[in-house]
């Protein structure tokens, strides 16, 4: 298993390198950030000074190698807009996004799997049909619209929940998070729900399909014949066998939740990385965009690794790292 992990990590270095190159040159092609950041009332001389200070006058190749040399030392560039190290700015906002992603993932698992199981095991009941229709609605509605509707209904009209922002944080066991305060939970409920809606729908459909297929397998019949309780048959044997596609999808979706929750974070003014990303794109803040994408690539690599390890735990037939 260790050899497998090490080999994977080395492959990921290549991926990260290629990725950083694509992003770096891509952003350069779009435009020059100087016009977004510079006060148009400045004299040309001062504009030139600012260009030199930000390193934008040197050829692209030189800027890229400069970036790589620094990256190896942990310096992923300094934001054009904020003037602070890009890595620091991203890491400052990471806890908020991670909270939101975990909350949404939790909802997806806790709501999606039981509902999907029910729909799969009792496909003809009215409730199952309602669940399936609900899941279609869940992935058809645009996130932007759902977010605004949630705010209007729960915050403006009913006044039950706050409409915007992150709540108060508390530190438990060294981790500072808004999930540990009541105020924080009230603030996270709507954005997490907004994010989770799509995932819940996906999980419901996957779980249902898996359940419908697995219920007819021989080993289920055998387990029932053996006299095992329904709970054990479904909860242990059935569930474990349909989990592989669900784990795969959830893994990828978790990566998406962390990296690209741009719309939800913008609507709910959640101080996370997604909002930072869209702001940096609009301002052509290249160091932040590149640093962000490098971090995201690393994140996806780690997630894929974790998913593969989970496979081997779920299904003993899977051996990691095929030999010859």
């Amino acid at each position, binding site marked *: 298993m260790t050899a497998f992990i090490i080999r994977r990590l080395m492959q990921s270095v290549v991926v990260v390198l290629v990725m950083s190159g694509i992003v770096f040159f891509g952003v350069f092609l779009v*435009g020059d950030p100087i016009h*977004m950041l510079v006060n148009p009332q400045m004299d040309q001389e001062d504009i030139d000074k600012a260009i030199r*200070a930000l390193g934008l006058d040197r050829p692209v190749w030189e800027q890229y190698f400069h970036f790589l040399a620094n990256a190896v030392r942990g310096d992923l560039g300094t934001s054009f*807009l904020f*003037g602070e190290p890009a890595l620091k700015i991203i890491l400052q906002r990471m806890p908020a996004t991670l909270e939101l992603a975990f909350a949404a993932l939790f909802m997806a698992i806790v709501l999606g799997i039981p509902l999907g199981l029910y729909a799969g095991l009792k496909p003809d009941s009215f409730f199952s049909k309602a669940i399936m229709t609900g899941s279609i609605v869940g992935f058809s509605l645009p996130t932007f619209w759902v977010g605004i509707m949630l705010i209007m209904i729960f915050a403006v009209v009913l*006044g039950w929940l706050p409409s915007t922002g992150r709540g108060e944080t508390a530190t438990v066991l060294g981790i500072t998070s808004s999930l540990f305060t009541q105020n924080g939970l009230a603030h996270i409920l709507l954005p997490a729900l907004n994010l989770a809606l799509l995932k819940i729908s996906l999980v419901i459909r996957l779980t249902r399909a898996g359940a419908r297929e697995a219920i007819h397998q021989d080993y289920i019949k055998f387990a029932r014949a053996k006299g095992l309780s329904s709970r054990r048959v479904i909860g242990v044997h059935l569930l474990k066998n349909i989990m592989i596609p669900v784990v795969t999808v959830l893994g990828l979706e978790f990566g998406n939740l962390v990296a690209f929750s741009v719309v939800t974070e913008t609507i709910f003014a959640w101080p996370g990385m997604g909002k930072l990303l869209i702001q940096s794109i609009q301002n052509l803040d290249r160091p932040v965009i590149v640093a962000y994408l490098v971090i995201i690539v690393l994140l996806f690599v780690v997630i894929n690794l974790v998913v593969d390890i989970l496979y081997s735990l779920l299904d003993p037939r899977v051996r990691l790292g095929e030999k010859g």
Partner: protein
Amino acid sequence: MTRARTVVAALLLAASGMVGAATAAELKIGLEAEPSAMDPHYHNLTPNNSVLSHVFDRLVEQDEKQRLKPGLAASWKAIDEKTWEFKLRAGVKWHDGTPFTADDVVATFERAPNVPNSPSSFASAVKGKTVKAVDDLTVHISTPEVYPNMANDVSTIMIVSRAHGATGKTEDYNSGKAAIGTGPFKLVKFTPGDRIEFARNDAYWGAKSQWEKVTFRAIKAGPARVAALLAGDVDMIEGVPTTDIERLKKEPKISLSQGVSNRVVYFFVDHEREETPFATAKDGAAIKNPLKDKRVRLAMSKAINRDAIVARVMEGVAIPAGQFLPDGYFGVSDKLKAEKFDLEGAKKLLAEAGFPNGFKLTLHGPNGRYINDVKIAEAVAQMLTRAGIETKIETLPPAVFFRRASTGGPEGTPEFSFILVGWSSGTGEASGSVKPLVASYDKVTGYGTSNRGRYANKEVDALTKEALATVDDKKRADLLAKATEIAIADVAIIPSHFQVNTWGARKGLTYEARSDEYTLAMGVKAN
């Protein structure tokens, strides 16, 4: 048994503590854009300047119409041709209790142009000025040539202390360590991307604010900002979207404040090139640049129905413009009015200029930089097409648009032929528009830095130069007004309208609307 009772009692006590919260005078404000840093010299950007005005003061301040009033300087005057004397206010203390002296001003002017990594510094406001502390409460600022706009420039620089601010790096300001000012509030915490918290400075030299605690949150999405106000999560918001204004006017829980901004939305044309890439004959053949003919420009201005733009596109939240700044500003001409809509007159002028059948034109503009910019471009394109100039539009993300508009052409020259842009005079008076926009582009002297149409008129240049060297206020205003009149008569730019900014607050609060678009807690009064 007693243990359980103790636990219950403790829980009840804790619960009651949580309930009896914000009775202190607390103000929560929802911003449209968040500041990029807490360093007052780092970035000359409206959100930064607005938010940091709570912590730092300037020698000279601008009121809600950008007229100058005393700040940390109690008075100022020109003591000779090239030197201005500023007499500082006595008894002012920094937030850490130490006294404010002239040395702090010197330190400020040394630091302001030299902040590392600054994307848009205050260098141009500080350039060429030598600052000397004559005694603890007197400062002399001298320039190599006579400089009547000294007070205006000085009103853009926030003062930091020698002890903390001068040596502080931008990170130190963001963490709060160096953010020691003399202003009405102290910085409590800056959480980037989330919120900024201020507490009242009870030792402030000026009028004490009624707010003990002020929290700013950036809520970029318009609908979410309005929802936050309606839900009561914030007490006031800036940038109410034009589409929501009618609805909020009818809402009994909300009161609106509106004020005309000093930002003019206008159109610039290519005055320079003999052939311009985005104007062609109706069949696509190349033609001589029609925009160089004043009659064509005047026709275009006449073809634009400004009243319709204000009423339909801006939903009444704008004022038709005839020049660079609205009425009442320094250097504005009282003879200029917004061009009247005259479709027939426009067609006649086009025919006179040799274009009876018009021509093809492309209008370039940003999307999302100015209020309703895309809709304005669409409306104007249709209006021009009706007059015979078949216009299509291309809107670009602001970053891309401004780069190409300024340097996208060959050899770093402006690329487009006809653009939609906006301009807001930072100094609050006409020279802050005339000098950068219609004075001839000159890299060395710094005139015409945003003259993307490359308009060049010797008379305007001469008047501008003279005005900037005239100390007498009345004479200077007249010179600027005359320069404006000549430029507008020559249709150097085609002004469209002045933006009106709208703030929304919960019933019981009023905000004194500002033309520089700042949102200040000091301007919020509870009645």
